């Protein structure tokens, strides 16, 4: 069940995370797979999910790959659609992300290998409170 609590008048979070949905068993995957990892059906159609979710865990990477600006944040977000995604976030030292926080994940680009890049942002419900 989608439990996002949007204030009246706010637009619903966009169905912004692109992937594929299996026509046979309904599993949604990001990125769109060549076949469904659950039932192996090749009938996977392009689809999108809302990015509303809850932080499972988060960290700030302070020492890491040389080709990335440090520090950067990484989080596992459990989407309301019961899919876990990893997403990056801009570090705010004063307000580190913590498990249980409501967030909105959005797609912000593609990697060199063509993979969707996801980012964690504040959830509209948090902005209203």
């Amino acid at each position: 069940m989608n439990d996002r609590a949007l204030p009246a008048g706010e637009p619903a979070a966009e169905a912004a995370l692109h992937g594929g949905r299996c026509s046979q068993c309904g599993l949604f995957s990001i990125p769109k797979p060549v076949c469904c990892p659950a039932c192996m059906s090749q009938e996977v159609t392009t689809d999108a999910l809302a990015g509303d979710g809850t932080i499972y865990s988060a960290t700030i990477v302070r020492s890491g790959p040389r080709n990335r600006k440090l520090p950067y944040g990484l989080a596992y977000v459990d989407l309301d659609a019961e899919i876990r995604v990893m997403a990056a976030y801009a570090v705010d030292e004063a307000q580190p992300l913590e498990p249980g926080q409501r967030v909105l994940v959005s797609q912000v680009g593609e990697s060199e290998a063509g993979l969707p890049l996801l980012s964690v942002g504040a959830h509209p419900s948090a902005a209203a409170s």
Partner: protein
Amino acid sequence: MAVAVIAGAHTVPFVKESTHQVDLGASAVRGLLESTKVTRDAVDAVVSASVAGGSLLGQRILSRMSMTGIPVYNVENACASGATAANLAVGMVRSGQARTVLVVATERLSALGGGALPLDPTDIEAAHGAIMPASYAMRAARYLWENGLKPADIAMVSVKNRENGSLNPVARFQKPVTLDEVLASTPICDPLTLLQCSPNSDGSSAILVCSEAAARELGLDAVEVKSSVVTSGVFMNAPRDLTWPDVTLRAVKEAYEEAGIGPGDVDLAEVHDAFSIAEILYYEILGFCDRGQGARFLAEGRSRIDGDVAVNPSGGLISRGHPVGATGVAQLAEAYEQLKGRAGQRQVPGASVALTHVTGGGISGVDNGACAVHVLAV
């Protein structure tokens, strides 16, 4: 089915940087043959493990000693590569395919230039900047949050393991550290600091896996392989509990069943402390303490060499070092030495049952790519 035993072990001291991986492997093989007095012609087959060793590493090592001309297998399974090679050797011996199999596991991570190991750029988590320290840091953050603990509670793993490693002549780090030093070391991925991360290392370790009969004929000191399990992580993109990794849970359950033992029978365990939090989680998964009690188990000294079960008496990955593909065999070598009562100052008193555990790899959708567990006993 033949009974498989380990009948000799030799680990080349793990170091920050060495000159050549073939030399490392050759030193381990030569050291093993010298210590066991086994002649080259008694070896039926060789399984060589490495992650970054390149093509035909086993043959390149063995040709230095004119040991090719027999079946040689080269295997890779991330950090579980060495233990996977041992598992294949055990299977060959049990099935009768071979009587004496030499396992050599070698890694020269210094060739990669240091820092976190590179992951597959076509993996969606790696594309976001995921590195192994971040993966374990998120386990740690979740575990601390769920259990109301502080970073110091898990950082104590490094203090214990550095103390154990100070007693181990093959360990890369042989100097104890204090809790303050661990917490004040360079931040890597919150809440993990540098001294809570296993160091990239170069090293090689070799063991001899034989049938019980072959070991007797060769006059070797043997410990029985009670169980040898390799499994892989199950893919799932739904939320999963990262403080209760299912790949280890399944491998451990299978290993206990195969050996006919339970956690209370284990005298020492070499576990995959790639990062401090991992050892805490494995106390719980291995059944040494209840869920959520791992940090308390550590704080009470129950995982020390003189505790209920000595966990990582070698110093573990954090102190011995982590030349990834070599680690699983080094763990088995430590277990062998402990069960033969040859572990010197770090000897676990009266050790008769040892367990080794490694996990391998970070790919999206599985909690670890591979896991291997062995139980040895005398």
